[in-house]
């Protein structure tokens, strides 16, 4: 009896220690202040010297050196391998450089930054009143009605990477059981949404954050049902790219014609910056509201499921929101900011092998970096620190 009591007390103590956070409190998500005189790129960004918008050219050189200095063996694809870097301040282009045969006209694979643009498609669908965030997915997409558990998955859960579906997001690390590899290249490639909806559940929908390309491709498949094939085929081109003046863009699809929103959007660096600029301006482009009010706030708020996600060291690397990343941290789970030397309001779309779109409202900065890093040699925090320090205070 005594032993059991001690054991129980110990267990309670251990459980408590998991939740003890050195930070405390809820994540802080400040509202975006309206930008008074946004500069719209019609059709292209205005190019200005960095000093004219309060940025030191000399200090910016340090960020350039960091990004473009090869640190590893090129033949073995090691080290930092930057393909493009574009920086904007106050809506004006202050820095642009390409390497490894890329140029301003060439599109680049964005990998998972595609997910953040798929989220833009949802903003547009929500604004049009075609879907609601708390709609169960099966309202629109039959494969999610396979049982009562799957019926609980809502669009919000999917956007928050909290569907609870038992996906395995390992890439090179565990190719045999990786559901993302099976989805893209083998068993799922003909119809990725259906493949993903067929996965069993590992957790109650909404309660655990697990980054999964499957959640995105189910969202993409839902949109196809919502719009109908004909309209869906044109959707990103007509509703996002055209209004933003983006014409040089490729969005690949699976065997059933569903956009592979998880992975395969190709854009130029300057065009991807336009997506960042749309979010920096709270979803307004050229004076017109494209995304619903509150959408960017939703974009910048950590996924609620973090509160009940079992603690692991990996959690600190992720601050997943609604198909974007934030630098808020999730204090309730002891998760600190992923880029402590960058402003706390920084948010981002990030992709495999070093694709990055950063939006920093407090500094009025947009940064796009494309690369082909096969190992973790490009330290985001170090790079962001250098860019931040280039801003003259």
């Amino acid at each position: 009896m005594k032993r059991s009591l001690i054991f129980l007390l110990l267990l309670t103590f251990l459980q408590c220690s998991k939740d003890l956070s050195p930070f405390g409190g809820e994540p802080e998500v400040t509202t975006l202040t309206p930008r008074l005189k946004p500069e719209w790129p019609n059709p292209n960004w205005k190019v200005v010297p960095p000093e004219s918008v309060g940025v030191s050219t000399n200090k910016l050189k340090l960020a350039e050196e960091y990004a473009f200095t090869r640190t590893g063996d090129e033949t073995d694809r090691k080290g930092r391998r930057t393909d493009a870097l574009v920086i904007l301040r106050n809506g004006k282009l202050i820095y642009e450089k390409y390497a490894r045969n890329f140029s301003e006209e060439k599109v680049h694979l964005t990998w998972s930054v595609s997910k953040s643009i798929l989220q833009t498609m949802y903003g547009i669908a929500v604004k049009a009143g075609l879907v609601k965030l708390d709609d169960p997915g099966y309202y629109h997409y039959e494969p999610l009605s396979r049982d009562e558990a799957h019926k609980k998955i809502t669009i919000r859960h999917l956007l928050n990477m909290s569907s609870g579906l038992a996906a395995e997001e390992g890439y090179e690390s565990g190719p045999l059981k990786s559901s993302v590899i099976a989805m893209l290249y083998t068993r799922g490639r003909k119809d990725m949404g259906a493949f993903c909806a067929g996965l069993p559940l590992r957790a109650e929908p909404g309660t655990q954050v697990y980054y999964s390309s499957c959640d995105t491709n189910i969202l993409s498949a839902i949109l196809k049902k919502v719009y109908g094939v004909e309209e869906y085929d044109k959707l990103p081109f007509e509703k996002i790219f055209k209004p933003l003046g983006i014409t040089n863009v490729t969005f690949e699809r699976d065997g059933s014609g569903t956009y592979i929103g998880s992975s395969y959007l190709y854009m130029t660096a300057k065009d991807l910056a336009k997506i960042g600029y749309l979010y920096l301006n709270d979803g307004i482009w050229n004076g017109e509201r494209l995304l619903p009010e509150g959408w960017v706030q939703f974009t910048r708020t950590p996924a609620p499921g973090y509160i009940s996600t079992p603690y692991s060291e990996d959690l600190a690397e992720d601050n997943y929101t609604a198909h974007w990343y934030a630098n808020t941290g999730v204090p309730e789970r002891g998760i600190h900011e992923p880029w402590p030397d960058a402003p706390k309001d920084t948010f981002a779309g990030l992709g495999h092998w070093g694709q990055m779109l950063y939006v920093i409202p407090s500094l009025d900065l947009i940064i796009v970096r494309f690369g082909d890093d096969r190992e973790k040699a490009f330290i985001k925090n170090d790079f962001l620190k250098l860019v931040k320090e280039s801003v003259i205070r």
Partner: protein
Amino acid sequence: MKRKISVLLSLLFLFILFWAQWNWKHLSSFPSIISSFYSKEYCSCYFVMQLSEEQCHDFARQWVPISEFKLDKENTSVTVKGLGRTNTAKYLSKEYGCTLVTE
């Protein structure tokens, strides 16, 4: 005692059978990964990102080497054989890029 052992062995056998069946779908589709990854990523690298042939080989190559490779510029397709499986990716258009086309 004998009965106990035979029950245990049967259970073990059932477990192995279940395990093999569960993993079979992973194991059976695994060899196709090499050629489908190479063909799809090479196709997009060459036709969508418009990089050089050499750079695209470097982009798509994996730890397991491939045995056959064919870039068909006329039909805008890439066919690759690896681990005994062949896969083809085809470039469709500027909007929709490449997709895997083999069954």
